C-alpha cells in the first residue's frame, strides 16, 4: 500500500508502524513518531496499524533555539 513517510509517497508491505519503521531502515534509530498528526509512543508502535494514505512522521533530535 502507499503511505506518506515524512512527506514522501512510499510503498510499504508492512502494516504495523513498528514493522514499517524496520522496513524503511529506521531499525533501532532514536526517533519519535506521529501518524496523521497524532503522537504514537514507542510502546504503541507494534499495535498501531497503518492504512493506505496515512501520513507517518518520523523525527529525531536536532539543533534548536
Amino acid at each position, binding site marked *: 500500500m502507499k503511505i506518506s*513517510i*515524512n*512527506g514522501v509517497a512510499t510503498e510499504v508491505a508492512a502494516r504495523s508502524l513498528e514493522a514499517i519503521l524496520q522496513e*524503511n*531502515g*529506521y*531499525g533501532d*534509530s*532514536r*526517533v*519519535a*513518531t*506521529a501518524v496523521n*498528526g*497524532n*503522537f504514537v*509512543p*514507542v510502546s504503541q508502535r507494534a499495535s498501531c496499524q497503518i492504512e493506505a494514505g496515512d501520513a507517518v*512522521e*518520523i*523525527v*529525531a*533530535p*536536532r*539543533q*534548536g*533555539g
Partner: protein
Amino acid sequence: MRWKLSRRDKEDDMSSFYGVELPTAFMLGTANYPSPAILDAAFRQSAASVATVSVRREAAGARAGEGFWRLIRELGVQVLPNTAGCHSASEAVTTAQMARELFETDWIKLEVIGHSDSLQPDPFGLVEAATILCRDGFKVFPYTTEDLVLAERLLDAGCEVLMPWGAPIGTGLGLINPYGLRSLRAQYPDVPMVIDAGLGLPSQAAQAMEMGFDAVLLNTAVAKAGDPVAMACAFAKAIEAGQLAKTADPMEPRDMAAPSTPLIGKAFLQ
C-alpha cells in the same frame, strides 16, 4: 571572577524553574553554529545551564539525531526542547509529545507562531496548547509577548514560568518594549520569567537581568557572531553582571544633577 555573587546572594536570588534551580541564568540555543565543536565550546566556556533543542524529520538510515543527542548529553546541561515552527495548537502538542519521548524530559518551550514575518506568538493557540500540555504533565515554558492578559491566561492554564520576548526571534534588536516588560515583571513578581529571543548584544541581556528577569534565553546572537565562543562568554558575564546589579539595589534615577564630590572643604580661589 572577582565579582562572583556570594553564596548567600545566590541562594536569595536563585530562581527555581519547576523546582529546578539552575547554576546560571543563561539559557542557550543549539542552532546555527559553524560546527558541533564550536557549539560544544560555547556551552562549556560560558557555563550556560540550559540547552534548547528541537525535533525534525529523520531520513531513513541517517541516524543524524544520535550524534547531536550524544553531544548535548555530554554537556550535562538541562535540556529544553522546543516546538519551533508550529503554527497551531495541535501541531505544537504533537511535537511536544514527540520531544518528551526523544529527550526524556517533560520540559517544553512552547512556541505557537501566529505571524510568519514577525514570528509573533499566536496568543489563542498558545493558551490552547498550554492548557492541554499542562494537563498532560508537561512543564511548559511558553514563548509569549509582554501582554499582561495573555500572561494571566497562561498562568491560569498551569504554566509556572513565562518567557516573554525581548524582540522578534533572530532580530537582535534587544528589549524593544521596556515599559511592557517592566509592567509584566511588576505584575507577577513571583513568577519565574525568562527573556526569550530578540537579543543581539550582551548589554541587552544585562538590562534584562537588571530589570529583574530570572534568566535569558538566546541563540542567534551567539551562533551568528564572528566568534561564537567569545560571544557566549560575553553574554555569560553580562548576565551575571545584571543579576549582581539587581541584587545590589540600584540607585533611583533623578532629573537634576547632584555632585558626587563633596563641596565641603573645596578651596576658595577667587
